[in-house]
């Protein structure tokens, strides 16, 4: 068997002896391999919070790799927790973290391995409740047949209410008929969606609505948001795995939410507003965490790390922390180029240099205006120059292709950018190189691009080939791309409705697990499944939606007003940018105004590089010229 250490638990930070016979038991399950799932911060936070409670405990499970699954099935072994190897079916709740759509078939496989019916309607009264949360839960409909309850938004607070409700059910002995009642009660907790309490109606192919079946079930489900990250300094005891995993280092979340407003980015839209962790708490989590774990690398995580108000100071303090002997490396994932300055580069490079990734996302300025990633070419070159001048030899640039209104000249502009970056690098080192990582764009729910028809695989393939041909002779630019076929499967599941449920089940029954892994992905399975359900891929994936179409996730609210998103979509097509509301007036997108919360930021001014859309000259520092069209005027046109 490959990597048996995946299944033994024993991590430093794991809760042992946590079994509490009268408490509500949660099995937190990540539906991908241990190496991918272990570092997941959301799961670790909930794990720790639940184990601190007297009325709950939590263990963890990860999708067994195919070799282990074969062993388990042939020896009649069920899905188990890595902490104590207790069978999954002994828990009250099996909660899945959904961070990508292509894991959906793994979710079904895990439920099945637990020895439970995959369809919620076929499970028995005493069976565990199957829950799910994470970014993909914002369109729960494709999994509506399989999941008993979804949780929208931050989980820190809502798990307490779920624990209480499920605890009462547990105390009652889960008698016949009680499952329906506990689900009904769960459905009344803010942020919880119980799909079986809702009915989807259609007019031919068209969805006409998803309505509650009972009067006490809310017509729309609102996400949960923790107002202040300072109240939640978790995980306090990050798990330290015995076998190497991705992001194998100390990870400290420095803020949640992002209002840069990139229109393709679901994470940025659904996690608003911005909530910064106080710098002092960040420092403490870093030094305590490094001392406890012995790691020599820390990653400051967020959706756009360089936007943190005190980023340079925090990086400097970390590197100068005496306990690390000056040997700690700081990783800054999700760096915006317009905030990556020589100062930051110099600080980060003082210890070991970590990989550097920038995400211009699109090649041409026109395209970046459409996606509202308003960094200028000069911003990028300046950041790249900072990095090469501080000793880096290579970096990675992230791009999307298949964006709205993208033309071949936009795609080819990616090559120009990459080549110019290499040319800058060559002024500093002969070894300069750039890796271009190209992803096919999949429109996501709750974003301004949710109405956009995705590019077909053939078109994406053509664009990839265009770039390959263009870059063929340049040995210093390496092009990597994601499978255009996989984007189709992702498209089916990301904007699908309840009718996609049987499609996912079909793919799973045909053995289609680990669809995120190219060696296991098979588009034919998805095509067969779609035609078996008499559904049309073109209709679900490639079709543009219009303003009045009922979207499958209309009853789920991330706070964003639908008319705000539609207006932003129209602005996108007109090429108008939108500034970051963190440092400029609010547009009333809804994320704060709907829930009576606000941004929590330490600095009232944007970091170097300026607010979204200013395209400011980096040399002028903190000056933020505003030349965007005011919002009101845009609305009027």
């Amino acid at each position, binding site marked *: 068997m490959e*990597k*048996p*250490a995946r*299944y*033994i*638990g*024993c*991590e*430093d930070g794991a809760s042992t002896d946590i079994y509490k016979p009268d408490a509500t038991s949660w099995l937190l399950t990540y539906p991908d391999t241990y190496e991918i799932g272990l570092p997941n911060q959301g799961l670790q936070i909930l794990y720790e919070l639940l184990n601190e409670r007297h009325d709950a405990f939590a263990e963890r499970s990860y999708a067994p790799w195919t070799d282990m699954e074969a062993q388990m099935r042939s020896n009649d072994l069920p899905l188990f927790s890595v902490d104590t190897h207790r069978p999954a079916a002994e828990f009250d709740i099996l909660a899945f973290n959904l961070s990508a759509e292509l894991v959906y078939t793994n979710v079904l496989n895990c439920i099945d391995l637990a020895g439970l019916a995959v369809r919620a309607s076929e499970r028995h009264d005493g069976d565990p409740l199957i829950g799910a949360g994470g970014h993909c839960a914002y369109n729960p409909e494709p999994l509506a047949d399989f999941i008993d309850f979804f949780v929208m938004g931050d989980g820190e607070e809502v798990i307490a209410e779920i624990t209480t409700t499920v605890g009462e059910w547990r105390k009652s002995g889960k008698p016949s008929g009680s499952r329906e009642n506990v689900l009904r009660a769960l459905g009344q907790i803010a942020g919880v969606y119980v799909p079986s309490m809702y009915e989807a109606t259609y007019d031919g192919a068209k969805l006409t609505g998803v309505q509650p079946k009972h009067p006490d079930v809310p017509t729309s489900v609102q996400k949960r948001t923790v107002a202040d990250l300072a109240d939640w300094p978790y995980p306090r005891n990050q798990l*330290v795995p*015995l*076998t*190497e995993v991705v992001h*194998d280092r100390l990870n400290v979340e420095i803020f949640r939410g992002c209002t840069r407003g990139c229109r393709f980015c679901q994470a940025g839209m659904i996690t608003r507003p911005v909530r910064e962790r106080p710098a002092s708490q960040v420092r403490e989590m870093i030094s305590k965490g*490094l*001392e*406890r*774990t*012995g*790691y*020599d690398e820390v990653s400051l995580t967020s959706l756009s790390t360089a936007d943190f108000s005190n980023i340079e100071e925090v990086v400097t303090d970390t590197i100068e922390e*005496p*306990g*690390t*002997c000056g*040997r700690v490396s700081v990783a800054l994932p999700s760096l915006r180029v317009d905030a990556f300055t020589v100062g930051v580069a110099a600080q980060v490079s003082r210890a*070991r*240099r970590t990989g550097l990734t920038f995400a211009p996302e699109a090649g041409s300025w026109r395209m970046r205006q459409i996606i509202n990633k308003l960094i200028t070419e000069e911003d990028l070159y300046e950041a790249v120059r900072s990095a090469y001048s501080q000793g880096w030899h290579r970096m990675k640039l992230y791009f999307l292709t298949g964006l709205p209104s993208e033309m071949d000249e936009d795609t080819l502009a990616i090559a120009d950018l990459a080549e110019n970056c290499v040319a800058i690098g060559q002024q500093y080192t002969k070894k300069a190189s750039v890796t271009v990582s190209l992803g096919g764009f999949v429109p996501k729910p709750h974003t301004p691009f949710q109405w956009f028809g995705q590019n077909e695989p053939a078109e994406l393939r053509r664009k990839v080939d265009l770039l390959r041909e263009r870059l063929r002779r340049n040995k210093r630019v390496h092009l990597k791309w994601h499978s255009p076929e996989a984007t189709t499967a992702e498209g089916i599941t990301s904007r699908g409705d309840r009718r996609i449920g049987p499609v996912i089940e079909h793919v799973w029954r045909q053995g289609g697990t680990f669809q995120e892994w190219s060696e296991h992905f098979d588009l034919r399975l998805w095509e067969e499944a779609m035609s078996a359900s008499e559904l049309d891929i073109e209709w679900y994936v490639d079709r543009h939606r219009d303003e009045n179409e009922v979207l499958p996730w209309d009853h789920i609210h991330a706070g964003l007003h639908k008319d705000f998103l539609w207006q932003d979509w129209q602005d996108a097509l007109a090429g108008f940018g939108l500034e970051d509301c963190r440092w400029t007036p609010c547009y009333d997108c809804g994320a704060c105004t709907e829930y009576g919360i606000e941004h929590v930021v330490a600095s009232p001014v944007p970091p170097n590089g300026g607010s979204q859309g200013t395209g400011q000259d980096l040399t002028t520092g903190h000056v933020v010229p505003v030349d965007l069209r005011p919002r009101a005027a845009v609305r009027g046109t």
Partner: protein
Amino acid sequence: MRLRIRFSKMGKVRFVGHRDVARIVERALRRCGVPITYSQGFSPRARMSFGLALPTCYESEAEYLDVPLDPDSIVDGQIACTGWGQGKLHNPQQMQAALSEALPTGFDVVALTVEPKGGRSLQETVVSCGWKFDILGAVTQEVEEAIERALASSEIETERKKKNELVRENIRYGVYDLRMDGESERGPIVVAELSAKPRVIRPSELVDVLAPGAEMGIARRTHQWIEHDGQRQEPLMLSKSLQLKEYS
């Protein structure tokens, strides 16, 4: 100067591979503030050298590790800690306890010395290893007979996979000791001393000879032997009073 460390690896952590063990040990060294030294270059790493690699899924009572120390850090035979241990002065026993505490459950430091650097590396000097393993469901009587036959013969023919090819080899030359040592709940227990030169002979190779078709249960390395002035000895002996901790 350097630390020479002997540690055990028991119970579930036997599934942790050799490279991962190195990462785990490095983290523990840093947590304790051991004044380790680093390699030069673009991406400096902590200097450590291990004895013979232990195959994944094997337990051990005798894993060895040399850690070169910053020469200024030894004060009267005590180790002046740095980093997270700044200000602490540990004698070898205290360092042994601190490292055991910092290692995950299942790993324990069972002996530790501070000694001068130099000499050949552990990997070069180990000539043989002691092993203890049980054979799943085998019949004790039959294994006993098989051992007798093997030791009486000049040939112990084994098969192993090498780059997808089956290699047959007579390993009699490297079987220094082979005997029964009772029974576990899984099956008869066998004790062996097997050569580490020119290659490490693994106990799993013997299972087919001793009980054809059967599978090995849990195997444990009990010793790594080196030769010093013509004498066979272990790099670090265990103190007589030490009780090894067992983990399930």
